C-alpha cells in the first residue's frame, strides 16, 4: 500500500478510482502523562508524551485507512489529508482520509 498526498503516485499511472477512504482513532491521554503535562504546561515547552501519543495514533489512522482501501481492491491512497479534533478535554480524534486508487 502506497500513501501519497500528491494527486497521483509519481511514476505510476492511476487506472481506477475507488472513492474516499478514511481511518480514524480516538485516543485519550493516560493519567501519568497528564500529570507530567500539567507540570510542563506551567513552564512551557514541548510535551513529549503527547507528541509520541499523537504520532502513534496517526500511524494507526493511516493503517486503518489502508485496510479500508485494501478491502476495495486498491493498492494506493492518494491525496491523503490529516485532521485532528479535540473531542472532549481528555481525548483527541485523529483522522486520515484520501482517495483509494489502483495504479499500474
Amino acid at each position, binding site marked *: 500500500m502506497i*500513501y501519497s498526498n500528491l494527486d497521483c503516485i509519481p*511514476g505510476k499511472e492511476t487506472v481506477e478510482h475507488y472513492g474516499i477512504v478514511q481511518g480514524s482513532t480516538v485516543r485519550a491521554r493516560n493519567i501519568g502523562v497528564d500529570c507530567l503535562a500539567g507540570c510542563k504546561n506551567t513552564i512551557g*515547552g514541548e510535551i*513529549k508524551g*503527547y507528541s509520541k501519543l499523537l504520532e502513534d495514533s*496517526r500511524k494507526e489512522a493511516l493503517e486503518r485507512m489502508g485496510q479500508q482501501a485494501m478491502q476495495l481492491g486498491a493498492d494506493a491512497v492518494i491525496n491523503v489529508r*490529516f485532521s485532528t479534533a479535540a473531542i472532549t478535554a481528555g481525548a483527541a480524534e485523529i483522522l486520515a482520509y484520501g482517495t483509494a486508487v489502483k495504479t499500474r
Partner: protein
Amino acid sequence: MGSFMQLIFTAVLLVVAFFVGTTIEKKHYKAVKEKEEEFADLPAISSKKVVDLNKIVNTKLVSGCIVISNDAFKKLVAQVYNIFGGRISVYETLLDRARREAIIRMKQQARTFGADVVANTRFETSRLGATNNRGKGMGVFEILAYGTAIKLSK
C-alpha cells in the same frame, strides 16, 4: 493570611515559569536553527508538481508532529493582550518554532527514507486543551507537518 500566601505562591510560580520558559525557548530556537542548516540540502516545498515524473524512483508519505505549550507567564501576558487586542507576540514565536520543529521532524523521516525533496508539504494546527477549566483561553497546540518524500534517480 491564607490568600496572601496563595498570592505569593502564584507570583513565585510565575517568576519561575518566566525564567525557565524563556530558557527553554532560547534553547529550542538554537537547536532549530542548527538542525535547519543540517537539512538545508533537503528542501520541503508546498507545490504538487515537482520534477519530471520520469526521474522519480520511489515516494513515501512522511510527517512530523510536535505538541507544545507556552509557560504560565506568557499565557498571562497573552490574556492581558487579549483584552486590548493586537499582536500576541509571545504566541507568534511559540507557533513559529513549533512549526519549524515539525518541518525538521518530517525531514528527518524523509532523510531516513533517502529522499531528495519533500513535495506538497502541508501544515495542520489544532488546539488540544485549554489553559483554564472553563474551556477558554489558549492552551496546548499540536502542529503537524506532512508531505510526500520523493527519491530521484541520480
